[in-house]
């Protein structure tokens, strides 16, 4: 479809990032529509009435939501760069690890940042385990996708860029070169890829954003991505 796609998202959101990088990898024609999550647009409410969240990809009359579903759709609907591998087993592994990132890696790290006391210790232990497991998946490869970035790399974008920022604001030191040399090297390589670089906000801005929302996040544990 030659029509310009519209991506409703925010630069502060790692989920929006996944969708944006996917579109950039495909060199797709798209327009980034920045959402103010405190005042959700009519467009967002119309195209994602159930969850009212970003990212939302509007492609012609169709709307696609949920970041990993958007990435798979972009992979299938647009020609060019292959985001998922072609082999069914490799695809299954990519989907498995992307889910692992969403269900285990991100929640453990997030809660490590925004809790204290015994609860925090528990989350930190979990976060360390999940980071070790994730790092193990790189297995001598440059990226999770092999020589070039793929589905799991996009899913792990939050690890590559946001984790360092969150831990800085929270005052903890989980993801560091000493403990996770392979994962940290991957993070640098991932963030250097052109389409990724183009989609990332200036680090200082993101640090300032999370620092300003720190108390609110600590109280609610809910993310504030815009």
């Amino acid at each position, binding site marked *: 479809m030659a029509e310009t796609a519209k991506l409703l998202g925010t630069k502060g959101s790692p989920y929006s990032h996944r969708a944006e990088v996917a579109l950039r990898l495909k060199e797709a024609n798209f327009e980034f529509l920045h959402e103010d999550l405190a005042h959700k647009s009519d467009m967002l409410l119309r195209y994602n009435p159930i969850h009212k969240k970003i990212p939302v990809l509007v492609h012609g009359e169709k709307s696609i939501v949920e970041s990993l*579903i958007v990435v798979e759709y972009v992979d299938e609907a647009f020609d060019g760069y292959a985001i998922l591998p072609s082999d069914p087993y490799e695809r299954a592994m990519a989907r498995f690890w992307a889910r692992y990132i969403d269900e285990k890696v991100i929640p453990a790290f997030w809660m490590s940042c925004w809790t204290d006391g015994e609860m925090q210790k528990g989350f930190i232990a979990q976060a360390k385990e999940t980071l070790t497991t994730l790092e193990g998946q790189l297995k001598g490869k440059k990226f999770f996708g092999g020589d070039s970035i793929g589905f799991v790399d996009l899913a792990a974008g939050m690890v590559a860029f946001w984790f360092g920022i969150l831990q800085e604001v929270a005052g903890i030191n989980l993801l560091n070169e000493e403990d996770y040399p392979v994962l940290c090297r991957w993070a640098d390589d991932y963030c250097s890829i052109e389409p990724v670089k183009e989609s990332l906000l200036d680090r200082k801005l993101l640090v300032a954003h999370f620092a300003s929302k720190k108390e609110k996040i600590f109280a609610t544990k809910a993310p504030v991505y815009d």
Partner: protein
Amino acid sequence: MAEDELKLLGMWASPFAIRVRMMLEEKGLSYEYIEQDLLNKSELLLKHNPIHKKVPVLIHGNRDICESLVILQYIDEKWSKTGPPILPIDPYDRAIARFWAMYIDDKLLPSFIGFMKATTEEAKAEKIADTRTALELLEGAFKKCSAGKDFFGGDSIGYLDVTLGSQLGWIETAERISGAKLLDEAKVPLLVDWAKRFLTLNCAKKTLPTVEQLEKYARELQVTRWKVATAN
């Protein structure tokens, strides 16, 4: 093990395992089913799903595939020429199917399971309301996906049919325990008809436990695991 041998580690009451069995039956694929005791996890389970230690696990030759929805897509792609497709062909229709499968597992299932775990009347009422809301949305999804045909997948069952179909016994169990109608003809007539049709299929009859078995199991869980009821 031979390169193309299939084994499935499952548990009789798990909708996640049941849906994979349904699809293997539908595709006419032969496999060895190995029932797992989840309270006493076997070496086999821990070896083939070391990360989550859960069912289902599809063992295909020397490869392990975990997570039910990942397994369904693997079966679809590996045996794309055998039987009808599991996911639709069109990328947008596939995205819709993936969205609703996620919704069924993330919103619907936790609602009716949550009801069975609830301790206060208020919490129970909330979970029942959540279940009904989810089913009403799925009624709309059925209308859109089926486009007037018998199943979410059209003429034959697909991804969403087994994802939701594998939970039908549990939904009825929740209805019996709560006394509340969830799959209500007045509210979700299309889903009620779809459920009746689905339950007549071979793949459903072969894999779904009876509601009597599930109710007994659920009530046991309420006492022993969830601790929301006492044994009488």
